[in-house]
């Protein structure tokens, strides 16, 4: 254990981020920085796609190249950015938030991280041998016929699934066995509830995708016939196995994000979260319901028509727990004393844009409408409002909110606000026109389109380039502030959750003395709730 001993030394230097390190904070930072790198790559691919689509007619990409960029844009963004970046927040925060010294399995934690860079390299290296071009959904039999890069893609996604799975085992075990004295389940911060609900989904859904990928890989490499229709194989089987994971994956990508904003609202409204238990339980409800809705992606597939009705109903019911969360958040900021810091702006932006994604989800669940808009730009707009307007906004909120905790330095508020405005305008400019394009008849994943959609696509492309540019002030802010920003105090936001009751950045093993928890995480506005005292008193005799 020489590595972790080195990490246990105060500081440890930047070199530790490039080693096998078992400190959950180091691993958390490794996750956050690496996945942000993949975010930039995915964004670059998106801008190439949007550039091709700026005007009708073939411009500079042929159909094959276009499909490769599009496929890897989706795969990188989902498997190498949103899912792992949220796991990165989980790694950094869960042990701190529950008052633990580390995760339950520190070495397995390091393994979860170190599976990601090679998997990312495999996915991107496939560009040299003919990258995957069947979309991130990899529908068989198209994904059986495409060049060898598709096999690398499947291997890469399997590795990333394994990483995510090991992380989930670790999170659940940590939350169940490593909570500090007095940290009952009803005192868990809502981000931890979000990670629990997510981990449940990862554990139950990811292995089915892995099994499906095994079948795809076997068809490609060993000549099996699972998806070969002429030999009795069934392409619909892949859709079932794929969506059984990939619809819950949306919740895997959104539940921790909802947890992040649930941390931000109370702190910057100086009010307790409204309906704590309802928010926590709605996360669990979403995760359980989320396992029953997958075939709403297959309404047009020609599956047994009678089966579609229950899937429509369960999909629509998910709007109820989601609504509970949104209304509870609004009630949290209502009558508060709101501070418009950058994290709060992103968290408020989260509600306004996630709402659009959520409402249009009801349109898609309604089968008669889905039969028209399925596989059109309407779906593209919907999923980007959920995952970009929603999850990515929350990720930004989290990055700004915990920046002083992670780096020990303050970021620049002015640049942060510039970033927020550019991001907010860019998101709406990019994705709102896509709804209309889809309704009017533009299919998704096309490298060319009828001239009637030219204006809408030009708007979307301009928005995408604004989004691309909006990352620059963030990167500048993060790098410069990390190196030479003003030093942050331990608890600059006067927050009550445990991660703020220790140094910024926290020392090795997190707490000088393990805390004993005596009150809830959001007890703002009560005389006892002085940060650093009420919630975390040193354990007697520790």
């Amino acid at each position, binding site marked *: 254990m020489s590595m972790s001993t080195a990490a246990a030394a105060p500081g440890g230097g930047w070199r530790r981020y490039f080693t096998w390190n078992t400190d959950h904070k180091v691993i958390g930072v490794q996750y956050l920085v690496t996945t942000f790198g993949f975010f930039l790559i995915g964004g670059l691919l998106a801008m190439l796609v949007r550039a091709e689509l700026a005007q009708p007619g073939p411009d500079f990409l042929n159909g094959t190249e276009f499909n490769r960029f599009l496929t890897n844009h989706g795969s990188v963004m989902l498997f190498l950015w949103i899912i792992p970046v949220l796991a990165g927040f989980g790694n950094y925060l869960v042990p701190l938030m529950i008052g633990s010294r580390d995760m339950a399995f520190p070495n397995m934690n390091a393994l979860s991280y170190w599976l990601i860079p090679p998997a990312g390299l495999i996915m991107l290296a496939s560009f040299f041998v003919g990258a995957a071009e069947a979309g991130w959904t990899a529908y068989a039999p198209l994904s059986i016929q495409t060049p060898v890069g598709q096999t690398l893609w499947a291997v890469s996604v399997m590795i990333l699934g394994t990483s995510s799975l090991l992380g989930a085992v670790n999170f659940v075990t940590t939350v169940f066995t490593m909570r500090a004295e007095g940290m009952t389940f009803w005192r868990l911060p809502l981000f931890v509830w979000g990670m629990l609900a997510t981990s449940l989904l990862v554990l*139950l859904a990811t292995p089915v995708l892995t099994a499906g990928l095994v079948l795809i890989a076997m068809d490609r490499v060993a000549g099996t016939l699972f998806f070969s229709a002429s030999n009795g194989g069934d392409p*619909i089987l892949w859709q*079932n196995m794929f969506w059984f994971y990939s619809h819950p994956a949306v919740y895997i990508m959104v539940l921790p994000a909802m947890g992040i904003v649930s941390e931000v609202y109370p702190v910057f409204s100086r009010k307790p979260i409204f309906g704590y238990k309802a928010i926590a339980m709605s996360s669990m409800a979403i995760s359980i319901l989320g396992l029953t809705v997958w075939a709403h992606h297959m309404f047009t597939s020609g599956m047994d028509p009678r*089966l579609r009705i229950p899937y429509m109903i369960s999909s629509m019911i998910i709007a109820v727990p989601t609504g509970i969360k949104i209304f509870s958040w609004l009630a949290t900021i209502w009558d508060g004393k709101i501070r418009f810091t950058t994290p709060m702006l992103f968290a408020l932006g989260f509600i306004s844009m996630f709402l659009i994604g959520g409402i249009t989800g009801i349109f898609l669940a309604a089968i008669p409408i889905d039969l028209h808009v399925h596989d059109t730009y309407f779906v593209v707009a919907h999923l980007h409002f959920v995952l970009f307007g929603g999850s990515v906004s929350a990720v930004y909120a989290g990055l700004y909110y915990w920046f002083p905790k992670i780096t020990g330095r303050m970021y620049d508020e002015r640049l942060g606000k510039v970033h927020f405005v550019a991001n907010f305008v860019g998101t709406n400019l990019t994705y709102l026109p896509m709804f209309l394009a889809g309704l009017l008849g533009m299919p998704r994943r096309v490298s060319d389109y009828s001239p009637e959609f030219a204006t809408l696509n030009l708007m979307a492309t301009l928005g995408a380039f604004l989004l691309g540019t909006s990352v620059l002030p963030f990167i500048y802010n993060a790098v410069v502030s990390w190196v030479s920003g003003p030093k942050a105090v331990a608890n600059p936001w006067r927050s009550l959750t445990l991660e703020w009751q220790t140094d910024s950045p926290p020392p090795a093993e997190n707490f000088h003395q393990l805390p004993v928890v005596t009150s809830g995480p959001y007890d703002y506005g009560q005389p006892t709730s002085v940060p650093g005292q009420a919630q975390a008193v040193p354990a007697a005799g520790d």
Partner: protein
Amino acid sequence: MQMDTRLSSKPGAGIRTYLLVFLGLAVITGVEIGLATVGLTRSLRLPIFVVLSLAKASLVAAFYMHLRSDSRFFTAIFITPVILILAVAALFIIA
């Protein structure tokens, strides 16, 4: 690791139990093979063999994996995905 042992299952389940369970498993397997060679009709085969194999799996899980004496939580963790995948498999097959 030292402290962990206090939590693991007590050496309560005796060797006798283990041997009896094995005997049960062996007998059921013998019966299964016997029935398979006899050649039952399809409508009989399905329920009989499903029940027999579930009995075997439950014996192993309850006694060899100590679910009978361990925390109920472990049983819940194991049973939940079994029930889920049964429902899901049925939906995969009829789709």
